């Protein structure tokens, strides 16, 4: 399996999805070699073999932006690959490593995740003749917030999708983008929605009301906390969310917005909140992980996924698991697997404001949304996704086997 990150060295949902999918595949009997572009211990993973394609630290890899197609790297001092100047350099090293691996071992399927590893996947197929499965978690079209994005990345994706024997899309939205924007025939693509592994949340964590004490204080005064836990990029549509919260607070002022995360749009959002006069009800946490991340979901009442283009959107399921009512854009894949949610078009600031005020002013509405959605996401299982993958491997190869995934 060709991936770009695994927890705890992940900067977002791609690593989480790869982790759970691989784990479920291993349970199905797959033997997996997983290649990452950095060197770091993965003590939590014993169900597959992890290969480090370079000696770069995961921090260097964060600088490479698993989610942005900006090419600059902030390389930390002592970096082990002095010739690696940008993400393309890392990808070259990654591809070379995969070439060597193909010499040493044999595989029954190559499973490559996103544009980052597609070139290596195509190369592995050339060298071995083994079927290539390309798993699309996000396209350049999504990352660019619905715009064309970087033409080089688009081209790499196109070549990968053409070369692939089968394509997995994480939602119908993504499948349609692959058809419409890349001209790939529909019958080559299978939709497999991501799941959520709620087991991983049973790690002894208990919410103690301490981390966001001021927000808890607001809740005691009857406030409703709205949150987004995300990267602050144009893809995520946060500008619309902030505008909508300003609108909503004109009608009902007991609401506050928690923006957990960081990214290139941060300063813009700070400025926008102050222009709208709502700075004192918008909370910027910076990048959160661990307890602060869990606590962000817990302090929140309404989780908004405001993405302009979101292939899936695992955070919505995480938020639902922490008893949030969900409001999700129609442009987010996760909305396809949930019913007890509000949806809106990402640009529709008024509709979102209505939905926020509606939930904030009705306990009955909030409670029915949060309790009903629990049954919906509980049906999603990584084991089902893994079973579908195994079927796909077999159908492309007719052998049950080892996966270079």
């Amino acid at each position, binding site marked *: 399996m060709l991936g770009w990150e695994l927890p705890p060295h992940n900067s977002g949902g791609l690593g989480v999805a790869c982790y759970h999918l691989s784990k479920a595949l291993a349970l199905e009997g797959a033997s997996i070699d997983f290649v990452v572009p950095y060197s770091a211990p993965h003590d939590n993973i014993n169900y597959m073999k992890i290969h480090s394609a370079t000696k770069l630290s995961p921090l260097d890899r964060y600088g490479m932006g698993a989610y942005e197609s900006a090419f600059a790297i902030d390389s930390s001092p002592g970096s082990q690959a002095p010739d690696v100047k940008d993400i393309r350099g890392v990808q070259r090293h990654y591809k070379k490593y995969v070439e060597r691996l193909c010499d040493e071992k044999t595989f029954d399927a190559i499973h490559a995740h996103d544009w980052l590893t597609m070139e290596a996947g195509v190369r592995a197929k050339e060298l071995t003749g083994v079927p290539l499965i390309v798993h699309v978690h996000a396209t350049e079209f999504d990352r660019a917030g619905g715009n064309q994005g970087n033409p080089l990345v688009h081209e790499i994706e196109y070549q990968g999708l053409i070369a692939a024997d089968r394509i997995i899309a994480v939602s119908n939205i993504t499948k349609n983008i692959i058809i419409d924007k890349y001209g790939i025939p529909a019958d080559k693509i299978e939709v497999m929605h991501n799941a959520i592994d709620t087991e991983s949340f049973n790690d002894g964590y208990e919410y103690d009301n301490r981390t966001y004490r*001021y927000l808890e204080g607001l809740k005691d005064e009857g406030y409703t906390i709205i949150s987004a836990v995300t990267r602050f990029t144009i893809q995520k549509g946060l500008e619309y969310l902030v505008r909508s919260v300003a609108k909503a607070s004109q009608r009902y002022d007991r609401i506050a917005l928690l923006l957990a995360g960081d990214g290139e749009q941060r300063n813009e959002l700070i*400025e926008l909140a102050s222009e709208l006069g709502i700075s004192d009800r918008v909370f910027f946490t*910076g990048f959160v992980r661990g307890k*602060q991340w869990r606590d962000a979901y817990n302090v929140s009442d309404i989780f908004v996924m405001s993405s302009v283009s979101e292939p899936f959107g695992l955070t919505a399921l995480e938020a639902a698991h922490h008893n949030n009512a969900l409001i999700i854009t129609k442009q987010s894949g996760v909305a396809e697997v949930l019913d007890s949610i509000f949806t809106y078009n990402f640009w529709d600031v008024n509709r979102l404001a209505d939905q926020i005020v509606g939930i904030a002013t009705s306990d009955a509405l909030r409670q029915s949304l949060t309790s009903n959605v629990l049954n919906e996401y509980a049906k999603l299982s990584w084991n089902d996704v893994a079973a579908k993958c195994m079927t796909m491997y077999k159908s492309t190869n007719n052998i049950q086997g080892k996966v270079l995934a």
Partner: protein
Amino acid sequence: MSKRGITLYLHVHQPLRVRDYSVFDTAIDHNYFNEPDPLSDRNNQKVFNKVAEKSYRPMNALLEKLLADHEDFKLSLSITGTFLEQAEKWAPDVIESFQRLVATGRVEIVAETYYHSLAFFYSRTEFERQVEAHKTIIRRLFNVETSVFRNTELAYNDSLAQWADEYGFKGILAEGWDPILDWRSPNFVYRPQGTKNISLLLKNYKLSDDLAFRFSNKAWTEWPLTADKYTEWANSSLEDAPLINLFMDYETFGEHQWQDTGIFDFFEDFVGRWISNPDNTFYTVSDAIEVNQPVGELSMPSTVTWADAERDLTAWLGNSMQKEAMGHLYALEADVLRTEDTQLIDDWRKLQTSDHAYYMCTKWFSDGDVHAYFSPYESPYDAFLYYMNVIRDMRWRLHETHRTGSLNG
């Protein structure tokens, strides 16, 4: 006819910078100003010690020497309360050296707000409390009374002058800005419009900024500036006028212009050169007012400051973040004062220091003149976030401890 005089006035100030105060500190940790990281630019003690070493100690030593060498040498200082508090804590010798200067009788202390705030534009009563607090600390440390007023950042308008007149000040300082002065010269004393007894001293910004901003600029056509050349400029600026008001930050000497630029030697040379002419002298601000009667009325209906090409308040209150932050802070006034909680009141006042708003300024992004601004923060947005988290913590303290105010402001 009286002598031609230079009124040298230096402004001494250090703010208490807000530490990296996050959402996770709000409602939990009420320490805003003590950054634990000794290397951080938000560590006030570190900054104070650095500036003391580069500026306060060497400049006070030079001033003492000049006062001893030349009996006509005089100057005026405004020293903020937030500076004095930090000096008392971290550099008592600096306080003592200022005390020695004042004890000569030829160094006058100018009145201002204790907290270097823009309170005049938000709350007249709070403003007056801070003027009184400043008078009190000056009395305690220097045993003198102040009689001439300068507002923070030299922010001045007619209503400030009218206030100062009624409050009993005999003089007030402002920027001598060309668009206001028109054909008039800053080298005379004026009477602010609508006042009875108070005199207005105007900064000669060309000659002041030659030292404060341009002295070490090698791209400047006049670089290097010599005492000869500067004396010549001063002479030609005066013509028949009686005085030149050189107003600038004290930290010009040693901090804004480092010692290796030659600023100290230049200054010593210039003072000697100026006084060597028997027609010349130095004035304190009170001398300048006593010796020179106002030549006419001057009106500044809109606020004029000594900052930037605009000479207005936009560096502090120009963008929405600055307006919001200050608006929220001053909105707490009644609730904060009602608590009689001295720690809370003190924190609230330290947050009024204008530097906090200045750090949120974004206008230099459009000028491309980033380096003209001093900020200890990574960006104005960081400054704003930390500050808003502190505002919310103030609300929390009011609400939880004093059962007053509300968390939503």
